């Protein structure tokens, strides 16, 4: 069968930020869906958002309430959300209470009532909230199954996209015949992790199209549910080809060490202990980008944007003007109880808003600490997804990470995330001639012929300044406690930096 012979399934907007991406572009029209989860997990709000996004006077939504929350109370609370448009009631959205029918009659009568209303209104959307409360006796589960099968058949024929809302516990997911009837099964979870609430949703099944698998975090705000796709909404974006352009740090000697600069679209890790100048280097990187017309984002977690900009001013770098001009955004993210995906979404939104080419995350340790404890377990995985997504669209990322200084090891990161990075620049203290000095080395540069030299540097009033040539008259520099060798002065040995290589 050719593509043009296949039936086209229209995709309806879910009305939930981020959810369209998760379900594969929108909810299949005429699908029969179940929203399941524990009380308070956001089931009704999700259904309301869909209803408000799709109901029109010509093809209204019928919202059947059964037992449980009083419809008046439900409307009282739901209208607090910004998506709730009172003008849509009652022409586009009608709430119909079936509790009397449920209490006094059987499921057959309920189906009859729904049928009558659907035939009268010709709705595009039908919601039954909550269908599970229609069954009050355990032996009636069979009746419920039969009811749902008949309802699904009827509503599909009447071209209605349907949501049944039900309270279900996690363990009820398995072997439940009711779920086999559904085209779509949305499972909402809410758990307490220490002092924070962690909300996640999963599309357990969705017929007809590919949804993004896995658990997606979501939040309920005044705008309703906001979902955060594990792919950050970038699945549809075409990955940029590997860039050839080199991005400068604005530090000529460092650019030379990096074979001309950081390759566009790379993820760079600057690792070092406290005070080694990681943030200074990051600031110079972002400032140089702005100077060259490349908008940038700085995500800070350990100091406020004002303090960050003032520190840049002390280095002679103006971050105030580009902020006013919309070329730079300094994000101060201290969410504490947010998910890593939600935090990353804030960064992504900022990147897309100003068309950022460079992104600084300062620092990964601060980032992790700002997250809810329950989400820290997801940190590395989410970071991987974000870096993959952003570098894929050509954004160059520089992350700083603090490492414990050891005189026996030379770690790059305490997070074991170096595999996420294309390039690693390591800064460290070293004891030389009775002074605590600083050295820098490019550890890794994917696809680049970086210098192998260990260079001494200082932090001056103008930022990081690399001193002299490579240090050749010491052994064991990376241990931090080098031994002075008998070799002659550094000038006597040809440098192994790239410029020298090219000349020789």
């Amino acid at each position: 069968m050719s593509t043009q012979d296949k039936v086209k399934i229209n995709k309806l907007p879910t009305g939930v930020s981020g959810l369209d991406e998760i379900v594969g572009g929108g909810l299949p029209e005429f699908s029969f869906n179940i929203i399941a989860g524990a009380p308070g997990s956001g089931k009704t709000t999700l259904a309301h958002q869909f209803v408000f996004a799709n109901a029109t006077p010509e093809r209204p939504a019928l919202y059947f309430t059964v037992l449980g929350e009083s419809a008046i109370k439900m409307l009282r609370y739901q209208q607090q959300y910004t998506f709730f448009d009172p003008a849509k009631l009652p022409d586009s959205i009608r709430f119909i209470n079936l509790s009397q029918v449920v209490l006094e009659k059987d499921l057959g009568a309920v189906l009859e009532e729904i049928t009558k209303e659907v035939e009268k209104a010709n709705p595009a959307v039908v919601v039954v909230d909550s269908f599970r409360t229609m069954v009050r006796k355990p032996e009636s589960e069979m009746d419920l199954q039969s009811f749902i099968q008949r309802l699904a058949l009827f509503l599909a024929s009447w071209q209605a996209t349907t949501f049944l809302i039900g309270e279900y516990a996690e363990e009820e997911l398995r072997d439940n015949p009711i779920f086999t009837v559904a085209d779509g099964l949305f499972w909402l979870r809410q758990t307490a992790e220490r002092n924070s609430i962690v909300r996640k949703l999963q599309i357990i099944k969705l017929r007809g199209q590919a949804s993004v698998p896995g658990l997606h975090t979501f939040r309920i705000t005044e705008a309703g549910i906001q979902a955060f796709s594990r792919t950050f909404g970038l699945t549809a974006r075409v990955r940029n080809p590997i860039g050839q352009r080199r991005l400068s740090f604005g530090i000529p000697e460092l650019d030379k060490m990096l074979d001309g600069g950081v390759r566009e679209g790379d993820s760079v890790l600057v690792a070092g202990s406290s005070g080694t100048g990681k943030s200074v280097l990051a600031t110079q990187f972002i400032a140089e980008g702005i100077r060259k017309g490349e908008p940038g984002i700085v995500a800070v977690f350990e100091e406020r944007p004002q303090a960050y900009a003032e520190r840049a001013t002390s280095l002679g770098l103006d971050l105030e003007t580009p902020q006013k001009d919309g070329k730079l955004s300094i994000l101060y993210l201290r969410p504490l109880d947010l998910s890593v995906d939600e935090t990353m979404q804030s960064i992504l939104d900022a990147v897309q808003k100003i068309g950022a080419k460079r992104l600084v995350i300062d620092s990964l340790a601060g980032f992790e600490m700002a997250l809810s404890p329950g989400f820290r377990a997801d940190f590395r995985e989410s970071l991987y997804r974000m870096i993959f997504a952003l570098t894929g669209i050509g954004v160059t990322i520089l992350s700083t990470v603090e490492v414990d200084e050891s005189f026996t090891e030379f770690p790059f990161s305490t997070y074991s995330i170096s595999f996420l990075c294309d390039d690693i620049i390591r800064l460290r203290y070293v004891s030389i001639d009775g002074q605590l000095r600083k050295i820098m080395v490019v550890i890794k540069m994917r696809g680049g012929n970086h210098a192998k030299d260990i260079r001494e540097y200082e932090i001056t009033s103008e930022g990081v300044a690399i001193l002299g040539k490579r240090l050749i008259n010491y052994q064991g520099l990376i241990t931090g406690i080098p031994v002075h060798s008998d070799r002659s002065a550094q000038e006597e040995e040809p440098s192994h930096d790239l410029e020298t290589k090219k000349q020789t």
Partner: protein
Amino acid sequence: MTTLPETRDLAQRLLTYEANAGNTSEPVESTTLRVYEKLRQSLGELAGAAGFQSLASRALTLARSEVPSLSAVQVAADGNLQGMSTIGLPTDIEKDRVDEGGVILISRLLGLLLIFLGEALTMNLVRDVWPDAASDDGNSQDGRKT
């Protein structure tokens, strides 16, 4: 706590509309019943019979504090309003075919909707039942406000 002038004005308008739309020879209390029944039908769909019954009972209790004669009126379990015909009517408002007890009862019911649902939803609901009477535009017929 008394009824708000705006709510009272809306109730008065609905009752006047129904009074003029109905048969002039019918008893005045039937106007209140007609308004009440229309609200019952509309609210019953939304809140269910039990939901409406509890709202109406609360409205009646509040109304009794302003119009003691309403103590003879009851809201039945199914939401029916009973005993309206036993209320005596002041002669000075009889000519308007709207009785004070009815005005207060309906305005209390509308007042509860305003409290629980807010103005936008309440007015949408009223407009849905009385498309002509709900708006105070002053160019309607049938004895509505001009």
